């Protein structure tokens, strides 16, 4: 490769559980970059390192069992190899299951690449009584074989050396397919040779693929291979006819399709190699993993361990993580104060646009950043579950349940990330659907993950439960956490049997990974990656949306006569204040424009004193204000009767100002675009018992759910000046409006089924690659949620049910529906069976 200098590209190929990513981390260290393969949602991880000769770029190929065109991952891996033609391929193999791993090695060798085998996890294999003779294996396959323990970085230098040597060995991989190790295809050899010769006649095809590999692929009945022939071969039709007749003749003669025959030839070769270079140091030992599984996957005990695991995740991430947020919140509050300090001073009644908009944005971002500690812990735990191998076991235990609803065992991870009963976030949840091989369940999972209880839904639930269900808190919380999963299952079943029924499905055929001790770097990296994706969401989408929501909530603004009215009231209050202080020694610093300054300083002083946690901090605040406002400090900390009287008058004025400001804010929202929309929707939402205030809160929560509580806080602010909680205010106002727990139940139900927040819908677009699905993900839950909430509310009112009766009734109904739906047969299986009986193929 002298033309390319000394920089080379290396592909990293291997099966899913062979430890490919740990090898990748070992080779490249921190220097990694994740992108997508063109046109698909599969991650393309690239990383690089330098050796004495130059830069080596390592591309982590998707985990593949073989290189067929049947699964997306394998197709992507194969296309990469054919198109990019890496200078060498590192084949990662789990030393404990050499036989299985060799299938892929054979295919890589057939493609003519210089292969370096990383025989990984040799320590585990030896502990299990399987000693692999790497030198013998290297001789048999005619490739370098490097024993590694990537977890402990054993074999790093040797692997790097071997990569460099292998890459320098061959000029053009396509033409170097001959020589070296070759599988004996026995009875098929003659036919392969015939096809190879015919394929080699085509110069165009020869540039792209090695003919021998192509011949084998064609005999395996690989559709992509046929397409390649059609595209590049000069005379495709006679060649394909020859192929078909050759395959038919073989099948007639040997009673087995060439594809299966090739598979069993590979298996025989693998078995023979394993026999020659693997030594059983112990006879028929039971894997350690299997010993663990005898307990963890025990038929009776498995659910108990599963529940314990989920409970542990809940306790550590949500409960403890929440406690952690009390420690991180002051930091965010400080940030807000810092921003507030830079911005122009607040006005008497209305702030400048720049101040209120910036603070609005900071508040929106802060509410989301507040959850970062929770997510860090949650994602760390989930990464540990994944890396240890237990996640695959969870999929195994739960697959039967998921299957009944058209989902897949591997939907478990997205649902857990989305927050099954623990609180999570739909964004990483939807990102995690990448791993689901079954297209239909992948889509169904993407569309149902948003029903899970994301952390942002919880404040509203807590608020409503505290107001309306004080006596039954735990029951209602249990209702909320289980009804969401029940509804998600119902929706998944409805979708998979209707609009998704035509989608491709995949079987739950999964290799059970061995248990591994997760590596700290691997876990931390994955947890940070996922948390970072959450922070990016906050930084980009949420900020942008916060601006839009701000505009829609604040404009067109108050009619001028209302504003004049408020201004008049404020003026009166100010003149009363002036009257009170006229004869005091402070008059000169509190008149005219100084009044506003004094009000603002007093407000920030109070805020700073409240934020100060310790005596020292409190003293520091005093000194700071003393330096900055030397003439006001005696007023802020009144020592003599005169100062106290002035301070009292100032406080009264400040209270009047706050009341007026909150009134203005409320009326602004009422007159805003959202306010109008909320009112316009009242005729529809009336059936669910939502008034316009609730409507506004729900609409604004589309941006980010946490804003629903904030908006409600602004809307229900009668009494805000009396310093009573939002709970009390809402219940007081609710009592006069005739709002009952039934209203709250309808709201909870709607919120549970509420469309995903904006960041999530964008993730839906990314993962489904279609705007239609994105729109669907918004429209369907809105309609469904309104129907459910409206139905429960209307029926509840009609029959005079109490909220708890309605809740119980709905729960029973939903559960019965879910159970009933689970018995409906899967349309995909009917199709599968139809084709099976039509073509009863066999050996």
């Amino acid at each position, binding site marked *: 490769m002298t033309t390319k200098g000394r920089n080379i590209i290396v592909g990293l190929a291997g099966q899913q559980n062979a430890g490919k990513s740990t090898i990748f981390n070992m080779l490249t260290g921190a220097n990694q970059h994740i992108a997508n393969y063109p046109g698909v949602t599969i991650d393309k991880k690239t990383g690089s390192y330098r050796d004495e000769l130059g830069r080596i770029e390592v591309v982590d190929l998707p985990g593949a069992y073989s290189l067929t065109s049947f699964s997306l991952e394998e197709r992507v891996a194969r296309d990469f190899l054919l198109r990019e033609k890496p200078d060498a391929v590192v084949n990662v193999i789990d030393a*404990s299951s050499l*036989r299985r791993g060799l299938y892929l090695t054979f295919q890589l060798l057939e493609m003519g690449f210089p292969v370096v085998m990383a025989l990984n996890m040799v320590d585990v294999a030896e502990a299990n009584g399987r000693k692999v003779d790497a030198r013998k294996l290297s001789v048999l396959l005619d490739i370098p074989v490097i024993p590694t323990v990537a977890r402990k970085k054993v074999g790093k230098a040797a692997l790097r050396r071997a990569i460099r040597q292998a890459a320098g060995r061959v000029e053009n991989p396509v033409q170097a397919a001959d020589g070296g190790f070759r599988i004996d295809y026995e009875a098929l050899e003659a036919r392969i040779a015939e096809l190879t010769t015919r394929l080699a006649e085509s110069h165009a095809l020869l540039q792209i693929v090695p003919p021998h590999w192509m011949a084998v692929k064609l005999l395996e009945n690989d559709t992509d291979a046929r397409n390649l022939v059609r595209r590049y071969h000069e005379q495709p039709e006679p060649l394909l006819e020859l192929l078909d007749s050759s395959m038919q003749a073989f099948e007639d003669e040997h009673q087995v399709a060439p594809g299966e025959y090739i598979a069993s030839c590979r298996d025989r070769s693998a078995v023979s190699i394993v026999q020659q270079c693997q030594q059983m140091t112990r006879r028929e030992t039971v894997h350690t993993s299997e010993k663990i599984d005898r307990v963890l996957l025990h038929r009776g005990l498995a*659910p108990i361990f599963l529940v314990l695991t989920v409970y542990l995740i809940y306790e550590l991430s949500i409960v403890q993580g929440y406690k952690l947020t009390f420690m991180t919140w002051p930091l965010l509050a400080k940030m807000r104060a810092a921003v507030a300090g830079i911005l122009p001073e607040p006005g008497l009644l209305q702030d400048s646009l720049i101040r209120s908009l910036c603070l609005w944005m900071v508040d929106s971002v802060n509410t989301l950043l507040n959850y970062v500690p929770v997510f860090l812990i949650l994602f760390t735990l989930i990464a540990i579950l994944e890396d240890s191998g237990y996640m695959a076991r969870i999929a195994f235990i739960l697959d039967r349940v998921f299957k009944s609803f058209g989902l897949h065992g591997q939907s478990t991870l997205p649902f857990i990330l989305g927050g099954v009963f623990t609180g999570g976030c739909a964004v990483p949840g939807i990102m995690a659907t990448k791993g689901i091989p079954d297209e239909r369940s992948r889509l169904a999972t993407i569309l149902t993950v948003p029903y899970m209880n994301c952390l942002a839904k919880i404040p509203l639930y807590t608020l409503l439960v505290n107001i309306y269900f004080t006596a039954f808190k735990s029951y209602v919380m249990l209702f909320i956490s289980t009804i969401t999963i029940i509804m998600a299952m119902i929706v998944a079943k409805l979708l998979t049997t209707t609009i998704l029924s035509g989608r491709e499905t995949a079987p*739950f055929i*999964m290799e059970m990974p061995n248990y591994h001790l997760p590596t700290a770097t691997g876990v931390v990296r994955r947890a940070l990656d996922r948390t970072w994706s959450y922070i990016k969401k906050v930084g980009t989408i949420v900020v942008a949306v916060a601006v839009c929501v701000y505009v829609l909530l604040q404009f067109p603004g108050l009619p001028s006569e209302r504003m004049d009215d408020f201004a008049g009231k404020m003026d009166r209050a100010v003149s009363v204040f002036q009257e009170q202080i006229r004869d005091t020694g402070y008059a000169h610093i509190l008149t005219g424009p100084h009044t506003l300054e004094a009000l603002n300083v007093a407000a920030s002083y109070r805020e700073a004193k409240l934020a100060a946690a310790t005596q020292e901090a409190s003293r520091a605040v005093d000194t700071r204000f003393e330096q900055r406002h030397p003439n006001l400090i005696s007023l802020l900390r009144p020592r003599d009767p005169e100062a106290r009287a002035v301070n009292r008058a100032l406080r009264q004025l400040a209270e009047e100002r706050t009341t007026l400001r909150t009134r203005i804010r409320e009326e602004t929202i009422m007159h805003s675009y959202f306010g109008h929309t909320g009112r316009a929707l009242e005729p529809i939402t009336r059936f669910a018992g939502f008034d316009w205030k609730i409507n506004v809160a729900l609409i604004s929560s589309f941006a980010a759910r946490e804003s629903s509580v904030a908006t409600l806080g602004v809307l229900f602010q009668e009494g805000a000046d009396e310093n009573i909680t939002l709970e009390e205010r809402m219940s007081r106002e609710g009592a006069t409006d005739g709002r009952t727990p039934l209203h709250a139940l309808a709201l909870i139900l709607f919120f549970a089924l509420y469309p995903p927040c904006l960041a999530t819908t964008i993730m839906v677009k990314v993962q489904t690659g279609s705007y239609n699905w994105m729109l669907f993900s918004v429209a369907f839950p809105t309609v469904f949620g309104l129907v459910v909430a409206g139905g429960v509310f209307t029926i509840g009112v009609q029959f005079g049910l109490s909220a708890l009766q309605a809740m119980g009734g709905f729960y029973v109904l939903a559960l019965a529906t879910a159970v009933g739906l*689970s018995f409906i*047969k899967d349309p995909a*299986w009917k199709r599968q069976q139809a084709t099976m009986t039509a073509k009863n*193929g*066999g050996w």
Partner: protein
Amino acid sequence: MRNKLRRRHGRCAGCENGQGPSPARDSGRRLLTQVANGRRCRVKRHCANGAIRRRLLDLGFVPDAEVEMVRCATLGDPLELRLGDYYVTLRKCEAELIEVQEG
């Protein structure tokens, strides 16, 4: 538990009874789902098509491969099987497509 597994005959909810390959009457020929926990058998043939067939072959369900039934999940489905030195999970629907020889 073993008996129960046999009696239930491995029909998962999605599978139509009697449409799979009928196991031959002769000694030891049966469907993979009929193999009891802890028992071993050899793959004879399978009736899957397309992607499932390919995946089964890739995972080593090739003619004459030795398979051991390890366990079934709590709800009776899916199954965990051992092929030589690795473990594979299959749903009963897929396992029903595989005909094996026991003993």
